[in-house]
């Protein structure tokens, strides 16, 4: 479902003396449906960079990243957008909110983008928000003013609204209390059970041990840097 071969990433900072920083070299990773792989490695090893390349908001300098049969490194923007809409979900650490859009609509939006009627999309959103213990009086409000933990849960609800065949999870249990952490872990287990291929970053070791089938140490692909 997700297949990376020989993916490399360098950043060229034109406005800082054209410094070239090689971050990842020759990453290969294949994730099958129903499998969850954890990215591990010290802070700065390139876990988030790798995840962003798979989502397509970072450009890979070489190699191929095939998700749902499309190589995202070569694909046109509209193809990448289609894959993101239909195939590849992403729960980032931070919710990017649009002012004035209600929490319910924020969560329902991925389904609306797939052409689902408003009522069905909102029903699914309500179910997820209830499950994640977001109090009903907040549903009509924009999440702009919510606490960090509440925003994180809205973000998770949005990420799980559509049953994506492939998912990227960046610290999905960070800043959650025990009860909500449990809800999120069971959402991940359900996604695996229906056959989703998942790549995640989990600093929460117990969570990682519970939902992940294997680990990939990203520092293996970090080129040795001259000190």
């Amino acid at each position, binding site marked *: 479902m997700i297949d990376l071969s020989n993916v490399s990433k360098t950043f060229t*900072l034109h406005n800082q003396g054209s410094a070239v920083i090689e971050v990842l070299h020759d990453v290969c990773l294949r994730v099958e449906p129903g499998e969850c792989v954890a990215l591990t490695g010290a802070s700065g090893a390139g876990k988030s960079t790798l995840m962003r390349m798979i989502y397509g908001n970072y450009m890979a300098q070489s190699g191929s990243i095939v998700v749902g049969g499309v190589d995202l490194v070569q694909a046109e923007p509209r193809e990448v957008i289609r894959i993101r809409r239909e195939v590849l979900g992403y729960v980032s650490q931070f919710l990017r909110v*649009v002012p004035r859009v209600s929490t319910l609509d924020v969560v329902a939006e991925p389904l609306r983008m797939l052409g689902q009627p408003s009522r069905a999309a909102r029903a699914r959103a309500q179910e997820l928000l209830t499950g994640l213990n977001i109090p009903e009086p907040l549903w009509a409000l924009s999440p702009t003013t919510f606490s960090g933990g509440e925003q994180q849960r809205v973000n998770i609800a949005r990420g799980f609204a559509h049953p994506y065949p492939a998912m990227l999870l960046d610290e999905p249990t960070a800043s959650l209390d025990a009860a909500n952490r449990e809800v999120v872990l069971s959402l991940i287990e359900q996604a695996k059970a229906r056959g989703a291929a998942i790549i995640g970053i989990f600093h929460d070791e117990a969570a990682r041990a519970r939902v992940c089938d294997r680990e990939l140490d990203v520092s293996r692909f970090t080129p040795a840097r001259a000190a």
Partner: protein
Amino acid sequence: MTPLLSVQGVTKRYGAHIGCADVSFDLYPGEVMGIVGESGSGKSTLLNCLAGHLAPDAGAVVFDTRAPSSHDGNTQQDRGPRDTVTMSEPERRMLSRTDWAFVHQHARDGLRMGVSAGGNVGERLMAVGARNYGDIREKAVDWLGRVEIDTDRIDDRPTTFSGGMQQRLQIARNLVTGPRLVFMDEPTGGLDVSVQARLLDLLRGLVRDMGLSAIIVTHDLAVVRLLADRLMVMKSGHVVESGLTDRVLDDPQHAYTQLLVSSVLQV
């Protein structure tokens, strides 16, 4: 799939000065593209060339004209991709009243200030042949509602409206005929941030629900982040970088884009 708009080598010079040089891209149905760059980068010149307001010195702007419908004058052989640069002025004018819409930065450039709000919306319908007063009024009421203008303001002139309301009225006037391609020139420029947020949210909903294609010129990176699927970055008349919006903004490759992105103040 046929692109809705295929832009091929569009160049516009002002004497020795380059307005925009050799710009090419394809825009597909339902795609929203942002054009960003500092003042003088050529983005407005390019937009005006694409929309037929300026004649480019070179290049083609090929639009996939639609099947004839009841209210436009197209005949069978006019269907399919046509170069709008070489088509006749009346044909281009018809296109700009039907399939195209243009949202100006200053609402007063896109509205008739001496005509009521309802009249502003109705006028565009009449330009494509609508004649039944009741139907026109009904559509105007519907559209004022969609852009969140109280329908009891329908007989008021836009001169009595706030800047944000005028801008929303301009959008209603443009979208009432169901265009397929909307050109927008700094649609949120000069508005308060709270008014901007409302307008952006409205535009986002309309673009999604109507399946519109749009080209948005702006210097505001937050606007394109919110509205555009893809981005073109212009500098001194040239396109220096293009791609998926969040790729260009999160991982800019060109020196100028890196400078542009890093110059935005964090709030």
